[in-house]
Each structure stands twice: as structure tokens, then as C-alpha cells.
């Protein structure tokens, strides 16, 4: 599916799997796992959680130019209803408790993305007395996204990575959860 003839019908549809270029052709999914994973990966509701400048890019990614809604990813403001916690920005030790709390409030299956240098490893403020050196010290992180801050397309690509991750999982085992840190 990498290339299609240029004269293709403009109304030609995307394949069932939305990750774009290297996706499988349209198949009727029969296995339960496929169906479940298909529904999960196409409905990633992310939590509005922005603590620093990465939050601006997070908002931008939901905006018109890089429309995350194309992939069914919309924001929810309550952690109970969201599937993906995008840690966008610097996490201080004071904030760390809240991050854990938010993570604990999310319903399984839940995913965490560390967006930007500060969430990855503390970034610019790594040496600071008050900054957590990487959010993976407090919650399990599934996807790391470098950038300071990452541009919207990079976040979009990371969402597609989360989709790939979901596709490769067994829903039932993921449903058991990893527990709270």
C-alpha cells in the first residue's frame, strides 16, 4: 500500500488499519483480539495533562493542522475515561504525587507516553533539585517521544506507535493491568 496509482479515485478509502503506509490490506477481522485491538487503537482518548511547553504542542496536535481526531483520538478531561496519559512537560517532585494519582485513577487498559525531554529524563532541568529525572521513575512508560518540545507531527507519530503497541497485545492480559506504582 505504499504507492497507489496517481489517477486513483479521490474518494478512495483508507485501509481498515489506520497507521498509514505500511498497513495491512483490508481484511475482515475474525479473531476477538483483532476486533478488540482494532477498537482500542482507533479510539485512543488521551488525558488533558500538560505541565509545561510540551502542552502547547499537545494542544496544537489536537488542533486543525495536525488533527488527532482523524485517528479517533480525542481528549477527555477525566482520567477515568482516558486511555492514554500523555505526560507533556516537566514533572516536579510536588507534581509527581499527582501524576501517580492520575495514573492510579485511570481505568485499564491504560498507557503512558512521556512526551518531550523533561518527561523522558528531566531534560533541561535534569540537575534541578525539584525535577523528577524522567517520568518513568514514577509511572511505567510505554512510549518515549524525544523533542524539546516535539513537533505536532512527532506526537502524531507517537500516537501511531501506541496504536502499533496495542495491535501487538492481547487485550485480556492487558486488562489485568500492571497495578499501581
Amino acid at each position, binding site marked *: 500500500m505504499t504507492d497507489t496509482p496517481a489517477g486513483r479515485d479521490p474518494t478512495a478509502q483508507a485501509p481498515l488499519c*489506520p497507521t498509514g503506509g505500511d498497513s495491512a490490506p483490508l481484511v475482515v477481522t475474525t479473531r476477538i483480539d483483532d476486533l478488540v485491538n482494532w*477498537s482500542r487503537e*482507533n479510539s485512543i482518548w488521551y488525558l488533558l495533562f500538560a505541565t509545561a511547553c510540551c502542552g502547547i504542542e499537545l494542544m496544537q496536535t489536537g488542533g486543525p493542522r495536525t*488533527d488527532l*481526531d482523524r*485517528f479517533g483520538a480525542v481528549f477527555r478531561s*477525566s482520567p477515568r475515561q482516558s486511555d492514554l496519559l500523555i505526560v507533556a512537560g516537566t514533572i516536579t517532585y510536588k507534581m509527581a504525587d499527582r501524576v501517580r494519582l492520575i495514573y492510579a485513577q485511570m481505568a485499564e487498559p491504560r498507557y503512558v507516553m512521556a512526551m518531550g525531554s523533561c518527561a523522558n529524563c528531566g531534560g533541561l532541568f535534569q540537575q534541578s533539585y525539584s525535577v523528577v529525572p524522567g517520568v518513568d521513575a514514577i509511572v511505567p512508560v510505554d512510549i518515549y517521544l524525544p523533542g524539546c518540545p516535539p513537533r505536532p507531527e512527532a506526537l502524531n507519530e507517537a500516537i501511531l506507535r501506541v496504536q502499533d503497541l496495542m495491535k501487538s497485545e492481547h487485550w485480556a492480559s492487558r486488562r489485568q493491568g500492571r497495578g499501581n506504582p
Partner: protein
Amino acid sequence: MNIIQHVANLLIRSVFHADPASWPWTWLVQAVVIGIAAFLAFAFVAIFAGPVSWIERRIAGRIQSRIGPNRVGPQGVLQWLADGVKCWLKEDLVPAAADRPLFLAAPYLVFTGMFGAFVVLPFGAQVVAADLNVGILYLLAITSLVVVGLLMAGWGSNSKWALFGGVRSAAQLVSYEVPSAFSLLCVVLLAGTLSTQGIVAAQGGWPWDWFIFRNPFMFAAFFLYFTAAIAEGNRTPFDLPEAESEIVAGYNIEYSGMRFLFFLFAEWANIWIMAAISAFAFLGGWQIPGIAPEQIAATKGWEFVGWQALSWTIFLVKATFLVFVVIQIRWTLPRLRVDQLMITCWKYLVPLSMLMVLGVLVLLALVPEGGGADTILRGAMVGLGLAVVLVSALRVRRTFRVDREHYREMEGRDLWYPPYRLP
């Protein structure tokens, strides 16, 4: 005789070869038919709520210069299915501090309140689950049940934001019941009946027979009712109970998975219900232009079915159009503040809707129906409606044209991209 008794009697006669009046199991067959009808209505809600959520997201996308879901299935039409399956399978969290029975029951109560309204909605010429003679009263009462559910959700969650949301929605729904009831009272005055089918029958198929174009007060009452209905449905610009910027997610903040889906479900069902009420109370309901209801009732066999289907289609088209208007309003207006919300209701909508009732009463006494003055009034109101349509179309055109030139200067491309072109 309504459709359910009709179908039940038909079944008893053709399948059991018994006389429905004396057969001892008539009630059982009727109960089964009612159950099937309820299931159909439920399926209708489900099938309506899903795709419309996708359509709303696409429309919202276009209004915000984005695209909206277009990856899941052809042009994203399966988006609602993905959302539904995912929510269904997500962990169903109950907070440890929650009031468990209240918390668990609230979504279903909300949904029941919405769903109960379907009983009296006149879908077609003979198609109504129960043509109650207190139809409008029943509608007002059953949709108020939602308040109890929302308050239960807010209280049972044992979270301050949820409680705020629940109390806000209780205040809002109770307040806006008043103007919406007064506006519907205008309709009742004109129709002389509370029954929903009676209200539709009192109108006609042509626009000048609709209640909205009967006189200026009805015209205003329609907009008053529509505003109050949007507020009752907790839709933007009146979505104070779930205002993200103030109280996170309102009454549903602690709900996850399936129970949250039920809240969404109820919201969509409610949009449909308020659009349907507006359609049958003001816009002539299922009335087919040029065909009187008695003529439909007199037909037999496939002709009868055909007329039924046509009337059903007309009703659905009117209601769906109003749903689109609700969606467009949602993505046009910003949210009100709490005090503004209450001011809008008690200082503006309530007195104005009372004024409309008075005006309709006065006109009822002064202008006899069918007289020359009545004809002139109806003609003028239809003209006014057409003028509103025309002026808004010209405004749309002007707004578009100005920006089109700017766009061409900046981007070198044409701005014209009609809604049927799906990127």
C-alpha cells in the same frame, strides 16, 4: 387504535385464529409486541446515537477547519463502533469512597428517563408506541427523571466536581423546564389536546399549516422552546454540568467504561428527542403535504405501508435537520457562565414564554381559524421564515466570498471545498 394493539390483534387473528376481544392470552401477545417495540426503539437509539456522534465530529472538524475521524473504516464511519467496543471493554471503576448503589444505578436511570420519552413520540401516521391523552405532560415528566439520575451520579461519585456537576444540572434542568413547558403550552392551546398524535393531526403537511408559522407568537415560541430544550439536554452553550474548564467532567467524572457510555448514549438520545419534540410540536411532524391523516388511515395493504413509510421519512428528515442545527449551535457558541445561565432562563426565557402564551391566547380569541386574517397571518409568517432562510444564506455567501479572496492571495488555492468532498 394504536399500532401496537393493531399489530397484536393482527397476530392473534392470523396466527392463533382467535378473537382478540375474548381470547384470554391477548394481554400476553400485547406484552410481547410492546417488548419488541421497545427493543426496536432501543435499537433505534443505539443506531442513531453512534453514527450521529461520528457525523457531529466530522461537522465539528469542518467548522474548525479540520477533518475529523476519517481513518476507521471508509471515511471513519465505524468510529462510533470502535469507541463503543473500547468503552464496553474498559475497566469499570467504582471509586472506593463512592456510594455504590447510587453510583451503579445512576447511568441507567438517566438512560431510562431519556428512553421513556420514546413511548409517546409520533414517528408516523399510525406509528406511536402509546398515544397517551396526556402525552405532553408525560414527556415533561419523564424527561425530568433525568435530573434524579444526574443528581444520583453527582452525589454517588463522592467527588466534589461530580457533586458540582450534579447540582448544576439539577438547577439547570428544573429551571429550564419552565420555559419549555410554557412554550409547549402554546402548542397545546392551538391544538386543543395533550396527545402527541392529536397535536400532529391539528397541523398540516404544508408549511403554512405548521404551528410555527401560525402566528408571530408561535414563531417566537419555537425558538424559545428550542433554546430551553438545548439547555435541558445539557448541550453547549448550556453544558455547564460538564464544563471542562471549570469542573473537569461534571457529574460523569468518576465514570469509566460502559457506564460512561450510557451517559453519552443518553445525551445523544436526548438530542434526538428534543429535535423530535420540536419537529412534531412546531414543524408539522409526519404530516405529508396534500394528504390528510384520514386518507392514510383509509388505505389498505401496501398502499397503507407506503404512506406510513413516507410519513415516517418526513418526520425523520425534520428531526434530523434539527439535530444538525443543534450540532451547529454547539460548535458556534461559547459556554455561558452559571449566573448567565440562570439569568437567561429566569429573566428572559420565562417571561418571554409567558408572553407567548398570552399572545397565543389573545390571537386565538381575536383571529378565528380559517378566516381572512388567519390566512394573511400565516402567509406573512411563512414569508418571514423564508426571509430568515434567505438572509442567512446571503450572509453565509458574503462571509465566504470575503475570505475566499484573502485565501487565494495567501495560499494560491481556491477556498471552495464543499461538505460532500471528503478528504
